[in-house]
């Protein structure tokens, strides 16, 4: 997944309304989330994606459990060697063990994904709920403002932003470049989260109990946090799950172009960018980290897909 903006197409959640199961009449009606959870527990794709995500998270937290070699272990005698029992994923052109680097790279990749998604969803939700709630000219101004960022092609925008702040021959520090990659992903994708939040708010605003709350004199913040947010959060969360996968893919793509995170940070993207000039002769240098990126993205996309179906009463 190269362009996180497209992730929105996957995450359309139908009008979300609590559904009560008539068969369970006398019992307390289950909530939307309880209902969704019962559905999800039986889905093999959901269980598989949760399992993969858990494994990746454990790898990111404790890479030492999975690899006896450190990420900077290097043996030039074995440079470019193919996968073997000694090094499962082979060695790269610098004699690094590709397996060890892939295991240690999980942390940075996952962190970029999580922070970029948090920032995207946070900015998008706040702007979206304000635009949807107040409507009128505020909505028009905020929507057009979002369009400005949505109109820029993602890869192109990210290239311009990242090269502006890091001219080609500069050497930015670890934290700075990670923050910049996270920032440029979120700056270019927040309008998607905003549109989802805005349309969910527009629907929820018209519901009777929201009108009733306003009639009773509830404050704006109470209406937003107590009444609107619980009803609008579901589609945004589904989007966030898929966007997390997309952000990990975007990190790898930017690194492949040579403008993303770079050494000495170890991430899947960095490995891919190191492999850029050598993969024709040493394909395992590129294919293993790229495979990890794909499987992780796949897990998040599957999770989002399953949750969306479970939350959508129409799909049942």
């Amino acid at each position, binding site marked *: 997944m190269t362009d996180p903006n497209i992730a929105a197409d996957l995450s359309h959640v139908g009008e979300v309304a609590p559904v009560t199961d008539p068969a369970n009449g006398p019992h307390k009606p289950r909530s939307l989330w309880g209902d969704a959870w019962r559905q999800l527990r039986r889905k093999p794709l959901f269980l598989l994606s949760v399992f993969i995500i858990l494994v990746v998270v454990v790898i990111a937290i404790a890479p030492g459990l999975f690899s006896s070699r450190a990420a900077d272990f290097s043996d030039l005698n074995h440079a470019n060697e193919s996968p073997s029992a000694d090094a499962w994923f082979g060695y790269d052109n610098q004699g690094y063990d590709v397996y060890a680097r892939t295991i240690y790279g999980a942390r940075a990749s996952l962190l970029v994904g999580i922070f970029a998604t948090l920032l995207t969803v946070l900015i998008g939700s706040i702007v979206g709920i304000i635009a949807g709630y107040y409507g009128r000219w505020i909505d028009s101004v905020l929507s057009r403002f979002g369009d400005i960022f949505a109109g820029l092609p993602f890869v192109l925008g990210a*290239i311009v932003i990242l090269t*502006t702040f890091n001219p080609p021959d500069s050497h930015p520090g670890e934290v700075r470049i990670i923050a910049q990659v996270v920032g440029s992903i979120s700056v270019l994708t927040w309008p998607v989260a905003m549109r989802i939040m805005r349309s969910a708010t527009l629907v929820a605003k018209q519901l009777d109990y929201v009108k009733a709350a306003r009639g009773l004199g509830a404050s704006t913040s109470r209406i937003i946090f107590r009444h609107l947010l619980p009803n609008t959060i579901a589609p945004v969360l589904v989007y966030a799950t898929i966007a997390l996968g997309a952000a990990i893919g975007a990190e790898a793509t930017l690194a492949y172009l040579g403008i993303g995170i770079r050494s000495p940070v170890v991430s899947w993207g960095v490995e891919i960018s190191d492999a850029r000039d050598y993969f024709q002769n040493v394909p395992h240098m590129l294919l293993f980290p790229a495979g990890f990126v794909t499987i992780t993205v796949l897990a998040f996309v599957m999770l989002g897909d399953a949750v969306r179906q479970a939350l959508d009463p129409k799909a049942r």
Partner: protein
Amino acid sequence: MGRYVLRRLLQLIPVFIGSTFLIYALVWALPGDPFSGKCGQRACPQAYVDMMTAKYNLDDSLPVQYFKYLGKLFSGDFGETFSGNSIGEMMANAAPITIRLAVIAVVIEAIIGIGAGILTGLRGKGFLDNLVLLSTLFLISLPVFVTGIVLQLLLAGEWGIINPSVSSEATVGELIVPGFVLGSLSMAYIARLTRASISENRRADFVRTAIAKGQPNRRVVGVHLLRASVIPVITFLGTDLGALMGGAIVTEGVFNINGLGGLVFRGIQEKDGATVTGIVVLLVIVYLLMSLVVDLLYAVLDPRIRYD
């Protein structure tokens, strides 16, 4: 309708100015001396610096610079690079290749995507349905450069079916594999969109009526069902054509295609601001116009929708 088009066109103006100003500011507000490294190993002669400063209006404030640039742009002048090549000419050479690539990608994704969507939408649950669902999930998760590199390694390296890089003419035949790579992600979305749309409309009243009055199955599916179901797909394809042109950078890089993507990437690397802004302006215009056309097309295709 006329008023709606006018209102939409007016709404495009602030978005266009915002997007292009953003890029202009980012490119021209680059920290550092714009002339460093432009004249080989030694510093640029003062006369050259003065000439270039005047040419790119570097002494003015940023907004003034931007509007002067925009004014020239609307008279059809994209300006020149630092080395004096006409940007308009370079773009005129590169754009057809990128457009060809994007069109091929859209055609491939439409044929395979709609085909897979119709098949699974009509059949309902079963092996084929699961197969298409899983393969679309997989395609969505693959970053484009991975698809490109794997296909390049297999088709060009292992089996020798295609050349690893596309020649400078970039004929249609050569662009089929890159087009497939570029369109692979959208192909998955189209398959899912068509499938959802078909399986929803399959139970609609007008389809039941068509079956009840004894229409042959081919006509029910081909005319009644398909016409209503492809509307969201066609709108997706329209916006995608605009988005793919901007997204072609990675694919063009993998297959060494000399299109707009390569041009803009070189422009950024060589700190040649005029090239970058020129291409971004073009891509933003294409994208905005395509999304407007798609909106209008919606009303034409679906008579139930009326703007006004």
